């Protein structure tokens, strides 16, 4: 067991965890943040994507102890003052989801992509979302949502 301190969605937490605890299990089981999903056990689906120190990562493929001292943002930290984050709003407006299982990870991946590249081309959007699988939408409306939110974010 190791005691770790980390910041999740601007709140500081201290927890005792087994060393083998995955970050996603810390978020879901210890902190009750079940918006971060687990969709596979091969590190391929991206449902578990969160931001660690500003970069998108797969929280099923990182130990909680590796996140000691880190700043973490999960899907629960995206809306501000009762208003959806522009990426969340765009997924709603563009019908960028059906069952919604992949959506939290998609949104975290898209937010990170637009942070690195505010004006992505179609090819850059496909490349930037290679770590996220959606079994419902066929991606077309997800791409639309990326473009809409890119425009909103660029115009501040």
């Amino acid at each position, binding site marked *: 067991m190791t005691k770790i301190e980390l910041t999740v969605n601007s709140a500081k937490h201290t927890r005792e965890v087994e*060393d*083998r605890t995955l970050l996603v299990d810390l978020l879901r089981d210890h902190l009750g943040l079940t918006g971060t999903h687990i969709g596979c056990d091969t590190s391929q689906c*991206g449902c578990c994507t969160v931001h660690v120190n500003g970069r*998108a990562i*797969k929280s099923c493929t990182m*130990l909680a102890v*590796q996140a000691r001292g880190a700043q973490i943002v999960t899907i629960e930290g995206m809306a501000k003052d009762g208003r959806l984050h522009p990426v969340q709003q765009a997924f709603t407006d563009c019908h960028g989801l059906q069952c919604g299982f992949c959506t939290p990870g998609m949104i975290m991946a898209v937010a990170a992509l637009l942070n690195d590249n505010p004006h992505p081309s179609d090819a850059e959007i496909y490349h930037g979302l*290679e*770590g996220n699988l959606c079994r419902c939408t066929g991606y077309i409306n997800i791409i639309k949502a990326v473009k809409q939110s890119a425009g909103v974010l660029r115009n501040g």
Partner: protein
Amino acid sequence: MFEISYLKAKSLSDAAALIGAHPEAKLLAGGMTLIPTLKQRLARPSHLVDIGGLPELSGIELKAGRLAIGAAAKHYEVAASAVVKKAIPALAYLASRIGDPQVRNRGTLGGSVANNDPAADYPSAVLALNATIVTTKREIAAEDFLQGMFATALEEGEIIVRVLFNVPKRAAYEKFPHPASGYAMAGVFVAETAAGVRVAVTGAAPGVFRWNDAETVLTKNMKPAALDGLAVDPNDMNEDIHATRAYRANLVKVMAKRAVQKLLATK
């Protein structure tokens, strides 16, 4: 995952001491190979010695015609580095095509090279650019280091510190990625160097290899058509549910031609 004890190394010497003190321990870098392996219970180390982000393993710099990249350099750092893009743009491109953004944000050069997955991208650049692997114990030439499927010259407790890549005149990398994982079904790195052309192939066979016939013809005539009469032996290729031997052998040629085409388009 089995129970495990996590140890965060404070320095490179601390890491070497920890790995030396625990014979069943494993080094943990980005965890993009090791953690999935642990989750599947395919390995049972007693301890993980975390070397991620150690300052001694960081840094990217150009020195005396060689590009030195720290073992802890993440794939996204190599892909985005202005130094790499200027010195060996093909290497920055290769890093930008590994896996996906989340994998590139954690996975490291050292972890990839130490693992020597037969379908990984970096080993092709290590071999084609005749790189030197600098460890805590010695310097190892690419050809001695890479020993086939998941095998390297690394000894127990030996840690990769950095990789020194020779800067070529021109180079290019092309891969046919596996559609789900991004790993290479066939990846070809072509480098034009002062000592001739070197062609390294990953993904297609049980380990990364040099395609000597292609090197000979391309040294005389750097054109995609120069490869027309050549073929790798399908019997040396892998066969699995994704592709037959013959298909992989053909992919090698197609990727090699594309890499040559791309190399010719670079300055």
